[in-house]
């Protein structure tokens, strides 16, 4: 699975096509859907963090905006669900664009702090506006209706998410190997060199931030519809960290790493579910060990190994 090759995509597509036939019951299907949703969010986040080198510790905020747009707009304002999803993405995109300029004046930990603050503000608003959002206890979400066709049930959601995932991987691969993607990576490597070469650094950062925010928002909507109930914890700091961890464990600046990271870390809590109070410790130990032994992430490390053997 070389980072830039499309072969990995074919393998993933094949796995996705076969998976429903080998999974024993719909709990596993549900888990697969959650993995897929996370993978798509992480793909977007990795474009921002891994490729453009801009840390975001508040991405869950965008997921939350999408999720609650899909919950609140139909429920309180009678919007059609599909419209709410698009509206949520638009709103998230606009918000991201508005805050991007001031935020991206900052670098490193200052940027991390600013994005963290943004996520926390979103979360606090969602928690406090309980008239609309149900507060910390959350609210139910209607089924998604796309132009008269209602998507519900794990079977349908599985295929929707699987197709979206393949498209997202394909688009990400295309993007990073394009002039735009190279510009992003260049500004990561050296901002001043990128500027002098004609990369409009500010614009690129804004574009990729808005794009990954909108990715997150749409997937937030899908999470909301799939689960049927949503609470502000989708937008909280631990969730942002969880997404960040998926990026890093899978591999910073690795498209396939995003998918692998999302799959592993979505499965991990389920695997640890029977640890009786030791889950947190085990989760922490696994994270740290993983970072120590594969600091570059699972996929890039495996790539390097693979290359070595050949």
């Amino acid at each position, binding site marked *: 699975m070389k980072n830039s090759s499309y072969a990995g995509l074919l393998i993933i597509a094949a796995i996705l096509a076969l998976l429903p036939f080998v999974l024993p019951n719909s709990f596993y299907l549900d888990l697969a859907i959650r993995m897929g949703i996370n993978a798509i969010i992480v793909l977007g986040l990795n474009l921002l963090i891994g490729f453009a080198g801009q840390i975001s510790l508040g991405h869950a905020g965008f997921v939350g905006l999408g999720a609650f747009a899909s919950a609140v707009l139909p429920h309180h304002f009678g919007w059609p669900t599909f419209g709410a999803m698009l509206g949520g993405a638009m709103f998230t995109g606009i918000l991201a664009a508005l805050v991007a300029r001031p935020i991206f004046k900052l670098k490193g930990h200052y940027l991390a702090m600013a994005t963290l603050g943004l996520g926390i503000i979103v979360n606090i608003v969602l928690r406090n506006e309980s008239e609309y959002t149900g507060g*910390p*206890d959350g*609210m139910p979400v209607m089924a998604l209706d796309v132009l008269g066709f209602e998507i519900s049930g794990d079977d349908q959601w599985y295929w929707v998410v699987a197709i979206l995932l393949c498209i997202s991987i394909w688009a990400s691969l295309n993007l990073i190997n394009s002039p735009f993607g190279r510009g992003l990576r260049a500004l990561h490597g050296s901002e001043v060199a990128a500027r002098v070469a004609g990369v409009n650094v500010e614009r690129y950062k804004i574009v990729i931030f808005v794009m990954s925010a909108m990715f997150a928002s749409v997937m937030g909507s899908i999470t909301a519809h799939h*689960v049927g109930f949503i609470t502000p914890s989708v937008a909280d700091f631990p969730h942002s960290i969880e997404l960040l961890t998926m990026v890093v464990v899978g591999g910073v600046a690795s498209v396939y790493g995003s998918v692998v990271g999302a799959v592993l870390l979505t499965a991990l809590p389920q695997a640890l579910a029977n640890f009786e109070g030791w889950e947190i410790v085990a989760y922490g130990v696994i994270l740290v060990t993983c970072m120590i032994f594969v600091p570059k992430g699972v996929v890039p490390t495996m790539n390097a190994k693979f290359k070595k053997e050949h």
Partner: protein
Amino acid sequence: AENKEPIKVGSILSVTGAAAYLGTPELNTLQMYVDDLNKSGGVLGRPLQLIHYDDASDASKANGFAKRLIEDDKVDFIVGGTTTGSTMSMVPLVEKAGVPFMSLAGAVVVVEPVKKWVFKASTTDRIAAERVFIDMRKRGISKIALLSETSGFGQSGKKQSEEVAGKYGITFVIKETYGPKDTDMSPQLTKIKNNKDVQAVFVFGFGQGPAIVTKNCRQLGLDLPLYHAHGIGSEEFINLAGPAAEGAYALAPALMIGDTLAADDPQKAVVAGYAKAYRERFKEDVSMFGGQAYDNFFIVIEAIKRVGGTDKAKVRDAIESTKGFIGTGGEINMTPDDHMGLSVDSLRMLVVKNGKWVEAK
């Protein structure tokens, strides 16, 4: 041939995270009674198997685990959902799959409107609010300050308080909030102190927040009656708040004052039995949440016994027809319109006197 298949008890509790304080005694209680019942031959001759997942106080995790309990583990009934959020995220799943579901959460939305498969034989925030307001009226208080936590518990409590206040002639002169992890509430209390109309302060929260509020009140010299909702009436509160706790009111079920309960109190036996067993096994004090787990669990066990099997629909019907069940939280009488079954006086008003909780007169 007799059915020896285990009866599968599913539970999803918040054993870690913000609500760990509630979830832990709940899980302890379930484990203890599943063990005990198994030792004494199980139920209907069948052993019990407890399958538990910790949602870490995160409602979306609860949803995933509920699916696992229903689809993968195929449990016969579910106890849990420590928080309202967790409960509500599971409700659509149990309703669809048709699994009897006993929530341990506090908010009234769980059982109102009534949902076919969802029960909750534990006190609600509405009852708590009503109980406090009744007591306030009794003492001639009508203008109060409401200080609620921004947690789900506090927000729902605030909403219910607002809804029922009118009925008891209570008006809120000032409403403030604090975060569940806040370390200092003096700014809010200073505002309350500056408002001369306030006759009493009603705090809706649980965990360490109410203890800090109590300390801050005394530090600021705020001498109004201080009422707490249900959920803090334990030794821990007095330890944390120290001398400042003296004179604070709080709601609690009979369980919390088991030792001082009148001998003829109908709950005496149940409460004493539970408290003794729990203390022996876990070497720690009982909490009302563990007691709620006891009540909800045994309502289902009784129902299964009455049905003579685990057919989900029949068990559900049996739960719905529970009558006169004496639990740690009071007497429970379910009806098709009431999936909670507790009355307002199931909660007792306690006050701290000489460093001990006693029933307020």
